C-alpha cells in the first residue's frame, strides 16, 4: 500500500506495481491524461512529478509515491485556466484534442524551468509528443504566447 498525491489529493494505491497511467485514469478517475502508445513514444500520457514531465505509461505507482503529481485537471487555479491552456484555445492549437493534455503538460514543465524558451527549446521539449492532426505550428505559437503572458508583471 502506498499513498499517492495527485493534484493535491491523496489516493491510496494498494499495489505499488500498478501502472501509473492506469491508476490515474481508472483508479483516480482522471481521464484527461491519455493512453495512446504505451511505449513512452508519443507523450499523450505526460504528467508532472514535482514540476518535471513524466510519461505516466512508463512508470509505476510505487516509483512516484514520494512525489507531487499534477495532471491536466490540476493546472487551472481557482477557476482560471493556466496560461498554456488559454493560449492553446486562442491559437486554435487543438484539433481532435487527444494529444492536447500531454502537449500542455510538456509545455507547463518547460515553462517551469525556462520561462522564455526559444523555438529550439520548445521543439526539444515537445520532441516526444505527437500530434497526428498536425497542429504543430499552432502549438509552438501557443507555447510562446503563454510564455509571454506568464512573464508579464502581475497587475
Amino acid at each position, binding site marked *: 500500500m502506498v499513498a499517492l498525491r495527485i493534484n493535491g489529493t491523496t489516493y491510496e494505491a494498494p499495489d505499488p506495481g500498478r501502472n501509473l497511467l492506469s491508476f490515474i485514469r481508472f483508479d483516480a478517475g482522471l481521464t484527461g491524461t491519455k493512453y495512446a502508445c504505451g511505449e513512452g513514444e*508519443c507523450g499523450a500520457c505526460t504528467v508532472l512529478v514535482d514540476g518535471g514531465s513524466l510519461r505516466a505509461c512508463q512508470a509505476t505507482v510505487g516509483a512516484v509515491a514520494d512525489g507531487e503529481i499534477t495532471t491536466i485537471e490540476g493546472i487551472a487555479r481557482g477557476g482560471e485556466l493556466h496560461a498554456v491552456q488559454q493560449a492553446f484555445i486562442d491559437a486554435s492549437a487543438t484539433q481532435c484534442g487527444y494529444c492536447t493534455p500531454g502537449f500542455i503538460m510538456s509545455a507547463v514543465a518547460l515553462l517551469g524551468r525556462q520561462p522564455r524558451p526559444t523555438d529550439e527549446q520548445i521543439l526539444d521539449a515537445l520532441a516526444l509528443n505527437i500530434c497526428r492532426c498536425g497542429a504543430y505550428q499552432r502549438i509552438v505559437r501557443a507555447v510562446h504566447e503563454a510564455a509571454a503572458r506568464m512573464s508579464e508583471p502581475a497587475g
Partner: protein
Amino acid sequence: MNEAPEHGLHIVGPVATTPGAPPAATRPSRWVSVLADGSVVAYAGKVEFGQGIRTGFAIEVADELRVPLERVRVVLGDTALVPWDMGTFGSQSTARTGLQLRRAAATAREALLEMAADRLDLPADTLIARGGRIAPAGGGRGVAYEELVAGTEQERDVDDAALLTRADEFSIMGRDHARCDALERVTGRAIFAQDTVIDGMLFAAVLRAPSHGATLSALDVTAAERMPGVAAVVRDGDLVAALADTDEHAEAAAAALQATWDEAPATASTLDLPELLLRSARDAFVTQEAGALDDGFRTADAVLEGQYYVPYVSNAPMEPRAAVARWDGDRLTVWAGTQRPFGIRTELAQRFGLEEDAVRVIAPEIGGGFGSKSPYPAAHEAARLARVAGRPVRVAYSRLDEMQTATVRPAALFNVKSGFTNDGRIVAWQFDAYHAGDRPFLGRRGSETPYDITNARVTTYTCDSPLAAGSYRSLGGAANHFAREVHIDEIAEATGLDPVELRLRNLAHPRFRRVLERAAEAHGWRPAAAPSRRGAGVALGLDVGSYAATVVQASVRGGEARVERVTAALDCGLVVNPEGVRNQVEGSIVMGLGTALSEIVEFHGGRVLSNGFARYRVPRAADAPVVETVLVGDADTPSTGAGEPAIVPIAAAIANAVSDATGERQRELPINRHLR
C-alpha cells in the same frame, strides 16, 4: 445526458426521401430546436474527430438564427438523438449537412418572425430577427425568442425554400472563430471512447491474431482463468477475451492464454509489393477517356515514361479504437469512437437479430481517424463479450492492436506515359494506376487528370493486398496525385519550362488557374527551368470538389530532406470558419509530409512490423514546416470539402522540391528512405 423533452420550437425533416434510402433516413427527425430558455440546439449525425465540425455547425445555425454563437449547442453522433447519417467521411459535413442545418435554422427564423407578427400584431415583413429577438425594423424592443417559444411545443417541417442569409449579410459565418469545444480539450474534460467508464464495467483484453488471416487452432485457458482479478475468460466463436476488474489484470490474463495459431505462409513482404501489384492487377476500369492515344503520341514532339510508387501508410490516429457495451435486457447501448455510428448500429442490430431502435450507438469525442474509424470491430467485440458476461464490457485497443488491425492506405504503383510538344502542350496522357486491395473506389478517387489533354486514358486496377486496405484522408487521391504531379514536373524539366508555367499552359479551368496562381504569388515563386537547385516544388489537385495548389521550399542535408516552408492555396467555395479551414489545411500538409518523407508500413506476410510510433515515423514538432494557407474561394460559391483536399498535392510538391534541390528525380515514397 439530459434527454428530458425540452419545450420549444423544433424544426424536423427526413434526411432523404429518395427511393432506396434506408428507412431510418426517411423518418423525420429534429435538426434545430429553439428552447424556452432561449438556447438553440442543432442536431447532426456527423461526429467530431478533430475537423471542428461542431464549431462549423454552430456558426452556421447561429448566423441563420441571428443568435450569439455561444447560445448554440450542437449534438452529434448519438443514434438516439440525431438524424440518421451515413458517416463522417468524404468531406460532406459542411457541403451537405451544414446546408441542411442552415435551412432548418432559416425555417426556425421565419417561424419566429410569424409568431412575433402575431404577438406584436404587426406584419411579418416589417420585423427583423436580431440578437435572439424579433423586433420592428424601424426600432423598438420587440420580443425575445424565449418569450415566443415559452410554453409551446411545436414542430415545423424544414422548408427547403427558406431564405438563406446572403454572404454579404453574414455576421458570424466567414469570420475566424476558436473551437466552441476547445475548453473541454485543454482541461481534460473531453471524454473519448478510451475514457468511457460505466458502472459495473469489466475490462476486456482480447486475444489478437498475430497476423491478418491467422486462425486459432488450439487454446488453453487454464492458466489465464487463475490469474488475479479475472471474472471470466470468454470464447465466443473466433473471439477470445479475458475479462477482469482492471485493465492490467485483463491484459495479464490474456498474456497467459496459451494459443496456437495457423498463419498463412508469408508470400510477400514490404519489398515484394510493387511487383505483386503489377502481377496481380485485374478489373481494369477506365476512369477517363478522351480522343485517341495513338494519335496523341504520334503528334507529340517527345514522349516520356515514368514509374511511381507509394507504400502502405497508416492513419495512426492518436486514439486507438475503444468501445464500451451495455445490455439492458434486449436493448444494447454501445459507446464507440466511430465515424459511422448509424452504420455500426445497423451492423449490431443484424448481428444480434434486433430492431435498429433497440440499439443505441453513441460516438463520444474521437481522437482522430482520418478514415480508419469507419470499420469499428471494437464495438462488436464489446457487445458480444457483454452479452456473454452479463455485465458491461470495455474493449480498448492497444497501440499495437490498432496498428496491426486497422486498415492502411493502399500501396500503389503507377505507370505514366505522356506525349507533349516542345512548347509544353501535353497531347497524350496514359495513366495506369495499380492500387492494392479489392475496393476499387479507393484507387479511382482523384485518378482523372485535370489538365486539358486531347488524348487521354486513365485506368485503375485492383490488385492483391497482403494487408487490409481501407480509407485514408482523400482515399487513394493523394497517391494518384503524387504520380501525376511528379510526372507533370518531369515534362516541365524535359521542355525546359518553369513548372508553374508548364501547368498553366495546360490548364483552362479558371478555378484551377486561380488557385495555382495565388499559391505561387503568395509564396513568392520565381520562375526558373527545373531543376533550379533551389529546392522549390509545386503541385496542384482537386478533391471533394475543392481546388488545391501547394508550393514547397525544401532542403536536403545529410541524406534527409527537410520541408521548411509550405504555401497552400485552397478554393473550397464559401468558407464557414476560416480558422477551422486553415487548421485543416495545416493538418493535411503535416500528414502528407509524413507520407512524403518518412512513413511506410512494413510487413512480412500478414504481420505488420511498423506497429508503434518507434517503428512508424509520423511527423513530430521539429519536422513541421511553416505553413501559410491562402483561402481563395468565393463566398457565393457553395461550400465544398476542406478536410481532405490539401493533402492531395503535398507529397508531389515535396518530391518535386527535393528533386529540384538535388537534381535527382524522386519517384518513390517515402523520400528519406531513397535519398543517398
